[in-house]
């Protein structure tokens, strides 16, 4: 935080809260960065000559006579090829002991893409996981979170998806990540020999929580550099966005804003949308795809964070431990990829949409049969067949350790249909039954 020559230094802070401080100053721009006693801060409110600053690392120990200087610019990141394989903190400063980046300085949180200049996403991202590729196919330019309880292995699955997906760059944005998880990602990526296409911005639980508000914009500014300047396919991983939202709530609370649902700020939808909408397919081939994690509290998706996220993102993925097979599966009922129909049946085999729906419907019948069984009722022959089907379906397709291409997945599904059902029970368009039914 080197200060420039002839910069005006203020030394009289009039108000201090846990996250903000206020002082009298003039000529200050909204959103501008400042340094408070050497700590980075940003202008969040100006009333006349009173300026309120949000101090990212917290205000503990800040005296009322602390030196405050304004930097005349919004937060920036230096971008360039040198970012690759490096680890940075929320301010874009190296934390891996390597040298500073010498690149073009750009403001983070830049403008939105004009919707008429976007391209319709149409390129499939294959992960080999049938719970994703078959039932909830991902497409470049999509934004989708894992909705998961804190004890679920979402970071492991996300790392797996990131490594298997064909992308030119992976940007990892870690917010409130435990140091163990940070090291997990670091080791997994380096063992896979993938560090040469990864850039990481990390805020761990050891860092101040308000700092993590910068992580998504830092990550996406780096992503925009590679997608716009280099026309690359960029995959951005944001974990965990619930921690981000919690930091927003802290700041809005300190600024005396009236909270809306679940103590979240009234602007939570716009705040999250600003981040997720950076996912885009550019016409010249570059793209930004966002896979995020939103941790839930006890599976409650009506909480303001998952709820608003669900309205913004293009679907959501749920993980569940299937007690029948003792493995983690991608839940076929609640998971959804909204963009899947842009590729299913066109970029994949034409029977894909119908096979996917039929399998999920039969899986739902099995769930009903299970309820009947639990309630002590007799099962019909059909019920028993759906139960057997469900187990096979979980084991051979839904489990996250499955690694197949989509055509193989479809073939497995037809095998299972023929093994347990008649064509009438499967309820698929006759033309497809004629072509694919296994006799």
């Amino acid at each position, binding site marked *: 935080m080197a200060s420039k020559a002839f910069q005006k230094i203020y030394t009289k802070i009039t108000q201090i809260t846990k996250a903000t401080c206020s002082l009298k100053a*003039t000529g*200050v*721009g*909204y*959103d*501008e960065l400042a340094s408070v006693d050497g700590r980075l801060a940003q202008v*969040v*409110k*100006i*009333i*006349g000559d009173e300026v309120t600053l949000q101090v990212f690392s917290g205000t503990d120990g800040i005296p009322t006579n602390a030196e405050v200087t304004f930097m005349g610019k919004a937060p920036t990141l230096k971008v360039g090829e040198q970012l690759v394989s490096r680890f940075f903190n929320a301010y874009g400063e190296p934390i891996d002991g390597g040298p500073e980046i010498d690149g073009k300085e750009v403001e983070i949180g830049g*403008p*939105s*893409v*004009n*919707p*008429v200049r*976007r391209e*319709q*996403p149409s390129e499939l991202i294959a992960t080999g996981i049938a719970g994703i590729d078959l039932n909830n196919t991902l497409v470049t330019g*999509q934004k989708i979170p894992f909705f998961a309880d804190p004890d679920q292995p979402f970071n492991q699955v996300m790392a797996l998806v990131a490594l298997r997906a064909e992308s030119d760059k992976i940007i990892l944005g870690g917010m409130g990540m435990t140091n163990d998880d940070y090291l997990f990602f670091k080791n997994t990526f380096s063992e896979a020999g993938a560090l040469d296409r990864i850039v990481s911005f990390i805020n761990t639980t050891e860092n101040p929580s308000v700092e993590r508000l910068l992580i998504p914009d830092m990550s996406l500014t780096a992503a925009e550099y590679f997608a716009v300047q280099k026309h690359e396919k960029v995959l951005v991983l944001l974990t965990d966005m619930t921690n981000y939202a919690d930091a927003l709530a802290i700041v809005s609370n300190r600024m005396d804003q*009236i*909270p*809306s*649902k679940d103590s979240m700020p*009234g*602007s939570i*939808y*716009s705040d999250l*949308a*600003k981040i997720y*909408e*950076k996912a885009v397919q550019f016409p010249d081939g570059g793209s930004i795809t966002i896979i995020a994690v939103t941790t839930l509290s006890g599976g409650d998706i*009506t909480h303001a964070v998952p*709820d*608003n996220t*669900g*309205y913004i993102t*293009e*679907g*959501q993925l749920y993980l569940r431990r299937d007690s029948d097979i003792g493995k983690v599966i991608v839940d076929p*009922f*609640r998971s*959804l990829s909204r*963009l899947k129909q842009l590729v299913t049946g066109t970029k994949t085999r034409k029977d894909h*949409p119908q096979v996917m*729906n039929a399998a*999920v*419907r039969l899986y*739902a019948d099995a769930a009903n049969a299970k309820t*009947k069984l639990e*309630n002590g*009722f*007799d099962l*019909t022959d*059909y019920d028993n067949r759906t139960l057997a089907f469900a187990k096979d379906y979980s084991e051979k397709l839904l489990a996250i350790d499955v690694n197949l291409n989509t055509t193989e997945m479809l073939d497995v599904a037809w095998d299972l249909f023929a093994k347990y059902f008649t064509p*009438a029970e499967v*309820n698929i*368009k*006759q033309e497809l039954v004629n072509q694919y039914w296994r006799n």
Partner: protein
Amino acid sequence: MATKGIVKGIVSNLVTVEVDGPVSQNEICYISVGGVKLMSEVIKVIGQNAFVQVFESTRGMRVGDEAEFEGHMLEVILGPGMLSRNYDGLQNDLDKMEGVFLKRGEYTYALDDDKKWNFKPIASVGDTVKAGSWLGEVDENHQPLKIMVPFTFEETYTIKSLVPEGEYTIRDIIAVVTAADGTDIKLDMTQKWPVKRPILAYREKPRPYKLLETGVRTIDTVNPIVEGGTGFIPGPFGTGKTVMQHAISKQAEADIVVIAACGERANEVVEIFAEFPHLIDPHTGRKLMERTIIIANTSNMPVAAREASVYTAMTIAEYYRSMGLKVLLMADSTSRWAQALREMSNRLEELPGPDAFPMDLSAIIANFYARAGYVILDNGATGSVTFIGTVSPAGGNLKEPVTENTKKVARCFYALEQERADRKRYPAINPIDSYSKYLEYPEFMAYISEHVSPSWIDKVNEIKTRMLRGKEIAEQINILGDDGVPVDYHITFWKSELIDFVILQQDAFDDVDAVTPLDRQEYMLDKVVDVCHTDFKFDTFIEVMDFFKQMINIFKQMNYSAYKSEDFYGFDKQLEALLNERKEN
């Protein structure tokens, strides 16, 4: 002299401006920040301080920056050349903007001043005219668009001169009218209107009664909407609101469709941009894009412009209605608009209402829905604005302010349900909770009797009752078990499943099944009701289940086949044969 002001305070996009003269509520001003001018709207005035909401990011704005007031409210320009365009919430033409990223302070003109239009006069010199009177006509995308006396004109006028048929730009003077006091006023083909005021240039607004066909069975057959009607679609995320909206906007039998993408995903708008230019309007055979206008304020675009976007869309819809056209307005989602109001109300430090929404939310929603309607114009022609909004209830809970307030004013309620969506029963509209008040209108009943069939409404009510009965039996079976209820109960239950699978469920991604014309809907309804009236003979519930599953499968194949094709009749025959197996005489 125009009022000027100086910025005194900034909190996000709420800016306090100290003014040197008069300002009015909702007046537009431009604040100069680092060489660009940012459009803003006055939302509160205290003494010399005007509180304005800036329609753009305020990054870098300083105390002392200058503001210029425009002397008018937020308005749109109306004239030929709007069809097929993509506007933002403030009617800037998105296609005219340069570069991939939106630039702050870049405003683009909504029309084209140079294009020549073939103008044909309708009125004659000496005619007495008033606001909304038709002066002439130009053809845009095969729609006969009327050139009207501006809606802002308050008196009656006499036409002094009118140009003969010929090629004119929208800026050429096409008529001169004389006011009562003798002043002459020159008119070109354009006019401006403040978006927050309804356009009232019509004679009366009777109750709407004409069915508006959408091709979606669960709407047309079960809970129909009418020309000039209002409806809303609440639903948790992932239940198919957007697919539903797109289906309606593609298929509805309307002359003009205005789509307001209000605070929703940019990729959804891109889908419209990508698909509509290639899709054909099933009613006219022309490109869908020709009749469509898109107002896009996606969720990452400025929040304040989100509120403006729905009003911009409504004003454009009303403009076309005044030409005697059938307009369909879709807004996805009105909850985002309500949230934009909440954000501003919060920054203004107003006392909050339920869920921190502003206290007047209910009035704002009611006034907006009231702008839709079927109207008889002064010249006897009719026009309509049908409005369907989606609502994104927080946490999927319908007991939240936006849903509750909308329910009070919208006449059709299409409740998307998580449970149906989880079971992949699309469209996931709950057949029991949803309703259309128009089914109770005597005018509507008379219209259906004449144009569809006298027995239609009875059949519709019958299937609704059967769905309810089916649900009750399903609950009993859950408690008592399959063997715990008589076989007859299973038959009744499966008859309701038949209705669900054949009429309610529809595959929006299948070329044939996606659109069901009304005559086909009638054919299928008759067939299904016939089955419901048939007595069957079964010994066990398993027989019932197997039989109905087979039947549903044949019916579904029928839905997938082209209407009255060889395949279609083939399945029809199979159905006859199957029914005869179990029919009880």
